[in-house]
């Protein structure tokens, strides 16, 4: 009985002490004085183990060597990451270096992690470190672009990071002008469509971490102007793909019993229901159709319903067809 009383007394004292630390602000949160001895080790070890427990499996890592993917990652890195981690080979700002923990220079940061772990860290961020989560959920797919860039840094093959001081059309151009593949062409779209997409990215109605970052990097009142600029600016023709009639053409024009006919809405200039697809980049089409099919994109009820039963093969066939016509 006496033992129990002592225990209760000690527990009460402990709780009281903890309440005093919180209530009277006794714990010093200063980033300048640093951690108490041992705390850094505990925090860092917890971080390492937590990441390796939760990171996706190695075999979920897609091919990351596509130069367009790497460039897209570099473009996002320029405004979203470089402010803390610095561009490769360049010093971090004095302010970033004064954080606790200080964000490691990017070349040093990537050295400790594999691609799957980098993906988890970029997607989820890390509590109490200042490392933010990816701006939207369920877009694990686009995180791989940044991972591709980081892996390229590790391998010493990374392209230059675009200047973070770019603004307006020059800023948009740093991805939409110079990169194909996963980055869509804008010149084929009408201006009002482009403006509506910028709004949708800004509000999160259309989820994309990369475009959410971009839409907050340019002033909202410039959306109409940017949309008009890109809509009227013909892109350089991309050589390559052979127009594929046959299967893709038939599927787009007539659909199947499970797949609506694409051209009913995406037919071209006159039927203005959906965005124009002829001449769009193939990799972009594949990724967007897959996102629609998987229910990640749902900002248009018609397209969500239309894509529901697409097979992987139909997605690649259609993407190849639309990319190959009207170049």
């Amino acid at each position, binding site marked *: 009985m006496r033992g129990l009383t002592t225990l209760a007394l000690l527990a009460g004292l402990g709780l009281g002490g903890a309440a005093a630390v919180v209530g009277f602000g006794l714990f010093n949160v200063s980033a300048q004085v640093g951690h108490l001895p041992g705390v850094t080790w505990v925090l860092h070890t917890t971080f390492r183990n937590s990441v390796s427990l939760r990171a996706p499996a190695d075999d979920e890592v897609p091919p990351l060597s596509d130069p367009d993917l790497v460039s897209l990652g570099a473009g996002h890195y320029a405004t979203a990451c470089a402010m803390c981690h610095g561009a490769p080979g360049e010093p971090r700002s004095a302010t970033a270096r004064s954080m606790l923990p200080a964000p490691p220079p990017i070349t040093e940061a990537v050295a400790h992690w594999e691609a799957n772990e980098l993906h988890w860290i970029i997607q989820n961020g890390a509590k109490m470190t200042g490392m933010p989560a990816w701006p939207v959920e369920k877009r694990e797919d686009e995180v791989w672009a940044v991972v591709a860039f980081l892996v390229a840094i590790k391998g010493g093959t990374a392209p230059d990071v675009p200047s973070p001081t770019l603004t307006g059309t020059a800023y948009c151009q740093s991805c939409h002008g110079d990169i194909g593949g996963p980055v869509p062409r804008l010149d084929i779209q009408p201006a009002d469509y482009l403006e509506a997409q910028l709004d949708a990215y800004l509000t999160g109605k259309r989820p994309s971490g990369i475009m959410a970052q971009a839409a907050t990097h340019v002033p909202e009142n410039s959306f109409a102007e940017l949309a008009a600029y890109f809509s009227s600016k013909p892109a350089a023709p991309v050589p390559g793909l052979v127009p594929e009639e046959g299967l893709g053409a038939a599927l787009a*024009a*007539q*659909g*199947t*019993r*499970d*797949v*609506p*006919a*694409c051209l*009913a*809405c995406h037919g071209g200039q006159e*039927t*203005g*229901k*959906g965005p124009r697809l002829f001449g769009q980049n193939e990799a972009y089409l594949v990724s967007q159709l897959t996102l629609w099919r998987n229910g990640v994109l749902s900002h248009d*009820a*018609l397209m*969500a*319903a*239309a894509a*529901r039963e697409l097979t992987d093969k139909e997605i690649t066939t259609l993407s190849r067809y639309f990319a190959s016509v009207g170049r």
Partner: protein
Amino acid sequence: MLAGAVVLWLLVNGAFYYTSKVRPGAFDQRHARNILIGGGIVLPVVVLTALLVWGLSILPDLRRPGDGLVIRVTGEQWWWRVEYWPEGADAPVVTANEIRLPVGQRTEIHLTSDKVIHSFWIPALGGKMDMFPGRETMISLAPEKVGTYRGQCAEFCGASHAWMAFAAVVMEEGAFDQWLANEAADAVEPVSEAAERGAKIFLTEGCGACHAVRGTDAVGQVGPDLTHVGSRQTLGAGRIKVTLDDLSDWISHTDLLKPEVKMPSYDLEPEQLSDLATYLEGLK
């Protein structure tokens, strides 16, 4: 059937009246035994045996070869894809959600299904037959009386199973041939300005991605063929009539009328909706 029900009702209530009012009190043992053996064993054995023999004897009729016309019906969620194959035809006449049969002829109905099991049943004309994905079943029907009967899916197939019905219309042979010829033709041109506007809306809103209106750019195959939707008895597989109001309701509140239906509800301006309904109603 009504007469039979009346007779049974009179018999049951008569027996009740007899034992409670006319002759209350216990029967003697011999009487009681005769009633049990006669009414409990002999009567059911005789009646059920006769019914079984008769039932088995007409069962093969449902599988008898038809007189020429074949109707191919595919169960969809939740509607009926219907193709008419007149004897010797090399392409079908495509329609939906309505079965028309010539009276006095035996018609083969070939049944299959898209994704889940359905069951084809016109209670007034014959037995049920299940419809399986990837497999064809057959039932042949020889209706004897002209009229409109109700058909219904008789196998639970999802959220809107109860709303998966159709009209079965039995017609004189001449009328049937005329109907089929009309059904085989392309859609009629819109006759009013409203209908013309509606036809344009049908295409610009992307309706043609899923629905075919033969003779126009709408060639979709996901949903019912609408070439002659205005001449059908029902809309949405037995759900509502095909009036202007019903068509507007259907287009704007599809999922309320048919839960979990694939077709999305359309948010159109009232005038657009009315033009579109006018166009569809005119597709006779």
